[in-house]
Each structure stands twice: as structure tokens, then as C-alpha cells.
């Protein structure tokens, strides 16, 4: 029995007749990870290498595909639209992440107060997040139109506007950010709620005895204790919004002009409208480098777990 147990769980590396059997055991253990690893190799590992490789070729869907060294990278650095797309992406990512990191904290604090009907609010507030970007985009485009949008009608009723939310160069990125806030705030809200439920109530009780009141408690207890989670949310939001594509694709088609062309939107056009695959992979590589930098930040912050 014991021998069998040892064999199954802790194969001894130097057991007398066992080296062949141990080897066979190892090989059969590989079988568990094999399906995953095959798919991983084909659809994740291979394309990463292939993208790096393609970025050094003039790789268009038809015709010869010559090696061109760093030409794609040089072209990218001198391409005005690339810089516009990068600027738009950075602007959108930072603005959206700032909104989605801060505002849900207060909503979560409000929903952490025990009161009747709080679960209804939680359910309601999370709902937009389960919708697809396409539905959100279509509905918001219809709501925010300058001429026929209901939002501008309501603003007109109080003497404001009409505001060309998604048709104005300066407003389009903030508008897409606010749309994204409406769509996605339920997710950070949930994460904050999970964090809040881990803060022991006696801390508040002690502070209350010391004379602390509502806002002071939030400012000096809740926010500092949530800090690791706030940083986690900030970095994960930044990473995901750097990859923005659906909002400009559905709502503005990159417009007005090029004012909401983002990096992934431009990559999509380069690859599937102009079929310049080599050039497009260069953009993907660039974006990957930016995102990896943020991910390293996340690992740094992620290392500090929540302790009280």
C-alpha cells in the first residue's frame, strides 16, 4: 500500500528498478497538460513569435514578402496617424481608468451600508457590464446625437446645448470615456465591495469612539485600507483600456476625422482594410511593449496582498 502511494504521488527518482517506471509515470503526467499545451503552442506561443518576425517583413496579403529590417518601425515613427492614434489611446486610457478607478469607490461605499433594497441597486448597477460593446455603442450613439439625441433634447430643456458629444474633435474622447464609465463601472464596484467587506467593523467602531465622522472615516480609514485594491484596479483598467477598439468602431468609426482612431482601431484598418499585415503587427508589438510595462507595475503592486 505504502509503496503504491509513494509510487503514485512521490515517485522516487533513484528507486532501483523504478527509473523506467518513473519515466513512464512522468510521461503519462504530461498527458494532463497536453491538450492545453498543444492549443497554447498553436494559438498563443506561435503567433507571438510570428508577430515579432512579421514586423520585420513587408508582409502584404498578395505579392512578395521581403525582409525589410526595421523599416516598419521607422515608418511607424514617422507616420502622423500613428502618433494621433497613440495620443488618442493614451488620452482615452488614462481618462477612462481615472473615472473607473475613483467613482466606483464611492458607489461601493454607499452600497456597503446595510439598508433595505441594497441588493437591488447592486444588481442594477452591474447590469450594463454584461452587455456587449455593440449594444452599448448603438444605444449611446442614438442617445447622444446632436440633432435627434434625447440627451441633447433634455439639455435643451434646461437651456444647454445642443452639444455634439461624439461629433466634436475635443469632446469625442471624453464622451467615449463617459460611455465606458456607464458601461463598465459595475466591475470595479464589485471589486471594491469585496475589499470593503474585508475591512473589520471594529476599526470604524474605534474611530467613532474617537470622534471620527462620515467623511473622515472614508478619508482616513476606508481609502487607505483599500489602497492595494485601488492600485490593482487602476493598473488593470489602464491595461484593458489601452486595448480599446469596440467603442470607436461602433460609435464613431474613428471620427470625427481621425479624432477617435485608437491604436487597435488603426491596426485593424491597416491589417483588414489595407492588408498591410507586417505594418499592422508592428503596431501590435509596440502596444504589447507598452502594456507589458504596465503589467510589470501590476506584478509589483499585486505582490503586496491585503493585510490588516
Amino acid at each position, binding site marked *: 500500500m505504502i509503496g503504491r502511494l509513494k509510487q503514485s504521488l512521490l515517485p522516487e527518482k533513484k528507486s532501483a528498478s523504478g527509473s523506467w517506471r518513473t519515466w513512464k509515470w512522468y510521461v503519462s503526467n504530461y498527458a494532463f497538460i497536453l491538450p492545453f499545451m498543444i492549443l497554447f503552442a498553436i494559438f498563443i506561443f506561435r503567433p507571438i513569435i510570428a508577430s515579432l518576425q512579421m514586423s520585420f517583413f513587408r508582409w502584404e496579403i498578395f505579392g512578395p514578402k521581403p525582409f525589410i529590417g526595421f523599416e516598419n518601425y521607422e515608418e511607424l515613427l514617422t507616420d502622423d496617424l500613428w502618433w494621433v492614434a497613440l495620443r488618442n489611446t493614451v488620452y482615452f486610457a488614462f481618462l477612462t481608468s481615472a473615472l473607473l478607478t475613483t467613482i466606483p469607490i464611492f458607489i461601493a461605499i454607499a452600497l456597503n451600508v446595510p439598508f433595505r433594497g441594497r441588493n437591488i441597486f447592486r444588481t442594477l448597477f452591474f447590469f450594463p457590464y454584461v452587455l*456587449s460593446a455593440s449594444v452599448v455603442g448603438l444605444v449611446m450613439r442614438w*442617445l447622444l446625437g446632436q440633432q435627434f439625441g434625447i440627451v441633447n433634447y433634455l439639455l435643451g430643456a434646461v437651456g444647454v446645448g445642443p452639444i455634439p458629444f461624439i461629433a466634436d474633435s475635443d469632446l469625442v474622447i471624453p464622451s467615449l470615456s463617459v460611455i465606458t464609465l456607464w458601461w463598465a463601472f459595475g466591475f470595479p464596484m464589485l471589486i471594491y465591495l469585496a475589499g470593503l467587506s474585508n475591512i473589520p*467593523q471594529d476599526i470604524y467602531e474605534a474611530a467613532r469612539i474617537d470622534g471620527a465622522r462620515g467623511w473622515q472615516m472614508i478619508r482616513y480609514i476606508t481609502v487607505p485600507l483599500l489602497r492595494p485594491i485601488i492600485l490593482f484596479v487602476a493598473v488593470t483598467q489602464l491595461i484593458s483600456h489601452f486595448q480599446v477598439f469596440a467603442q470607436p*468602431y461602433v460609435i464613431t468609426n474613428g471620427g470625427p476625422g481621425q479624432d477617435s482612431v485608437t491604436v487597435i482601431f488603426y491596426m485593424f484598418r491597416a491589417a483588414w482594410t489595407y492588408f498591410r499585415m507586417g505594418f499592422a503587427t508592428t503596431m501590435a508589438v509596440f502596444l504589447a511593449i507598452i502594456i507589458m510595462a504596465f503589467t510589470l507595475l501590476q506584478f509589483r503592486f499585486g505582490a503586496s496582498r491585503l493585510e490588516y
Partner: protein
Amino acid sequence: MQAEAQPPHLTDTNTQISRIALYVLLTLLAIAILFPFYWMVATSLKTNPEAFYYPPDFYPPEPTLEHYHEIMTRGDINVPRWGWNSLVIAVATTAVTLFVTSLAAYGFARLEFPFKNLIFIVVIFTLMIPSQIYMIPNYLLVRDLGWLDSYHAVIWPAAPNVFGLFLLRQFFSTFPRELEEAATVDGASRLRIYWQLMIPVNRNALIALGIFVFLHSWNDLFWPLIVLSRVENRTLPVGLAVLAGAYGAGDSFSEPALIMAASSMSSIPVLIVYVIFQRRITQSFMLTGMGGR
């Protein structure tokens, strides 16, 4: 346990006022969140000219289902067909992902083999790399395999879910070894331990991951947009996104009531499923959102 009875931020003398203010604020927020849905459905029940009325009618003067009828009979806005495609793809992706990922997670959590840690580190490292970098080479591969415009093109590339592997491995690692050893003594094979111990014991984590994968697949736009081009093969997000282009006029639409009917038709089933399973769904996002922490 007074803290339970007295909420921390509302222990002042003006508790009542704070409470009312809280309700008012949350209700305003709830209206801001619900209004776009209301407006979507209200517009879908108008005729197209009515949708452009100024001042607008806040409810359809003579509610009509003509656009829903139009969608059911027209070829180019085939919402039911797109919904079916989305469902098949999301279900298959979830099933394949859960199976392949949990099997590998068990391997990495509990079995020994050479280079285990090295392989795991290489796999986890790819979590840092945004998925867009796979898209172009994967598109070319899928095209060469003749998979364009097929379910295969969407399902298989999504199956190796590295984040899911990371998540499940954490759960499988915390399973008490003594129980596993006891099962081994009783003659259970590794496959049986995986299937009859690991899977049932960790079913909450698996369900959470399953919901997460399902919703991702259901809502994904970029990849299906690339690989599914024929009208009848589109998923809902792709079909709707293409409509946005085809019926777009400036910052509005040429046939808003029709577009809103298509949007309503594709989001109402989601709403129903969400209301039924909302506890599970929010739990899933809490768990996966924190990376299983």
C-alpha cells in the same frame, strides 16, 4: 456586535437625513443607468419617422412591433440567427475551455514531471502580452486551415485560457493532500481524482470561470469580426457593429427604430439570464476580477 446594527458611515445624529440622501443619490444613479435601456425599447416600438419627432415622445404614441417583424423576415438583419451563432460559439468555447484548462490546472497543481515549473512560467508569462498580438498570425493560420466563416475559427483559439489555468491551479493547489492520498490508497487513478474529487470540490471556481468565459465569448467583437464575414455567420456583436456602419448617418442613424429593435432583441435575453443568475454572475466577476485572490 453593534457594528452590524449601526452602519459605520451613518452613525451620526442625522442618520435619517443621511439615509434619505443616500436613497435619493442611488435612485438618481439608477435612473441614469436604466434610462438608456428604456429609451432603446421605447424607440424600437415607434415608427422610424416617429423616432425623429421633435419634441420627442417619451413613450411610443402607438406602439408597433413592425421592426421586430421586419427583423424576423429580413435577411440582412438576422438577429435570431446571429443569436444562435453567438450561443453555439459561447457554449462550445466554455465547454472546451473548462475541460482543457482544468485538466492542465490539475497537472500543474498536483502532478510531477520534468520542466513543470519552467513550462508553467512560460505559459503564465504570456498573460502580460495583449491578445491583439496573436490576431494577425492566427488570422492567417485560420485562413490557411479553411476555417474562415466557421465556428471553429472562434472556438479553438479561445480554448487555451491562461488566466483560467492560473485561477484553477490556485484552487486545485489548496485541496488537502491527505484527501488525495486517501483516494490513491483506495485505488483511484489520477484521472478519477481529477474527475471525481477536484472537479466537484472546486465546482464554484469552475462555474465562476465558466460564466466569465461565456460572457467574454458572447460579447467579444474584435476576433469574430475578423474571421466571420458572411451575414449568416455573424455573432450578435459583429452583426450589430456592422449595422452601426451600414445604417449610420452622422452621429445618428437612418432607421433608428429598426436599429433599436435589433439592439433590444439582442439584449433582452441577456437581461433575463442576468436577472435569474445575477448572484452567480456577480460572484464570478468578483472571483475572476481579483485573480482568485
